[in-house]
């Protein structure tokens, strides 16, 4: 499905990272994994460090911290927010929506639209799509899209396929109406027949969490997780990405009438270095135009990974001048989505550390 939007822009992006950092080599010691093999994996997969929320830190904590940072510095006015979209798979509660919790904690106006979207690694593009759709309304001038997850709390520390790469983060993207400029193009596809390739089996109404669902089960050599934990079919996900993403980008660029060379940077979701390098090879995109260091520095924080990629790698550039960026996210659902648009100069494009606040979530 293709989308075109006009007269809209991103005006700023802020990434909020938990200060708590763990190293891959430390993690692997817990798996009784040969050190030489860990070092090779570190090199090939790009695993090095990851940021994890401490127990008790919720999505709304990271989001509220970031929003207050923007309010305190005059980078965003609370009364100017007409809609707040939260994209997360780790809400504070099953009900109410965490976007409402954030609205309440920030004392935002009542005359606004709050919405939670359950999406993962494609969640940055999905969130932007929803924001641009809302901006078609006369009553909505500015939308805040928050991508935030603390999924490390649902990943088994004994699952060596997932734990070393998981990260927690939040990102706030401010989107607003603007004067006419280059159109924004997006493409989105979904395939619910493969919903179980990435899932947390227990904890919803289909299979409520219980002492039974908390029992660790062997899933491969020296690898353990329970039904309460995130389960990923790594081979299926890898092949999904390699098969579906290149034609999606072709379709997007064709619809936009752009060549690959017309895109300054391909800012993709980053599951691991190896997967993204294979994707870049397949698409014929030079590695330097597809930054690939977020998992290495911070871990894979689901929908927050693309905005983290932008603030960490292009933060200074984007406050100075516009760049044409191609975003692509792919994951849970399964969902794969891409967008090409001019971004910048931005009012802010920063990465900050989260300092725990005493207010409970």
């Amino acid at each position, binding site marked *: 499905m293709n989308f075109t939007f006009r007269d809209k822009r991103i005006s700023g992006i802020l990434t909020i990272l938990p200060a708590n950092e763990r190293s891959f080599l430390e993690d692997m010691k817990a798996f009784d994994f040969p050190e030489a*093999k860990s070092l*090779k*994996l570190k090199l*090939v*997969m790009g695993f090095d460090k990851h940021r994890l929320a401490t127990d008790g830190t919720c999505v709304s904590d990271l989001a509220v911290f970031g929003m207050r940072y923007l309010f305190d510095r005059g980078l965003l006015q609370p009364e100017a927010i007409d809609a707040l979209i939260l994209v997360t798979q780790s809400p504070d509660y099953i009900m109410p929506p965490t976007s409402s919790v954030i609205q309440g904690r920030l004392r935002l106006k009542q005359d606004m639209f709050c919405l939670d979207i359950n999406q993962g690694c494609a969640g940055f593009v999905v969130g932007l799509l929803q924001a641009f759709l809302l901006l078609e309304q006369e009553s909505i001038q500015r939308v805040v899209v928050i991508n935030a997850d603390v999924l490390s709390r649902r990943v088994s520390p004994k699952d*060596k*396929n997932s734990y070393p790469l998981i990260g927690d983060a939040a990102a706030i993207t401010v989107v607003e109406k603007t004067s006419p400029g280059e159109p924004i193009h997006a493409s989105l596809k979904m395939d619910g027949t493969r919903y179980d390739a990435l899932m947390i089996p227990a904890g919803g109404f289909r299979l409520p969490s219980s002492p039974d669902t908390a029992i660790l089960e062997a899933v*491969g*050599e020296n690898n353990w997780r329970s039904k309460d934990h995130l389960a990923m079919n*790594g*081979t299926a996900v*890898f*092949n999904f*990405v*390699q*098969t579906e993403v290149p034609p999606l980008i072709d379709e997007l660029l064709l619809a936009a009438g752009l060549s690959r060379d017309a895109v300054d940077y391909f800012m993709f979701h980053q599951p691991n270095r*190896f*997967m993204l390098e*294979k*994707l870049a*090879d*397949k698409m014929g995109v030079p590695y330097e135009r597809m930054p690939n260091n977020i998992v290495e520095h911070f871990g894979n924080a689901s929908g927050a990974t693309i905005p983290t990629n932008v603030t960490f790698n292009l933060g200074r550039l984007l406050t100075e001048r516009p760049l044409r960026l191609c975003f692509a996210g792919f994951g849970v659902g399964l969902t794969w989505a891409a967008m090409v648009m001019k971004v910048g100069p931005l009012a802010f494009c920063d990465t900050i550390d989260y300092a725990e606040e005493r207010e409970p979530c």
Partner: protein
Amino acid sequence: MTKLLEILTEIRPESSFSESHDFLDDGLLDSFDIVMLVSSLDKTFGISIEGIEIVPENFRNLEAIRALLRKHGVET
């Protein structure tokens, strides 16, 4: 020992690859091992195995890996 066996043995020194017909079912290779194997094959033979070729069938035994390498013009 062929170069391919050398690479496999470097990844899993404790495994006996020449005696297995199914590296995956026999537990000789896991998904991390396959990633490292592809990375080593790419570097050693100067090829780029495509992402869509990284499926279990292409790494099940020596003959399957050799067939994959032949597609990239490599004889071992």
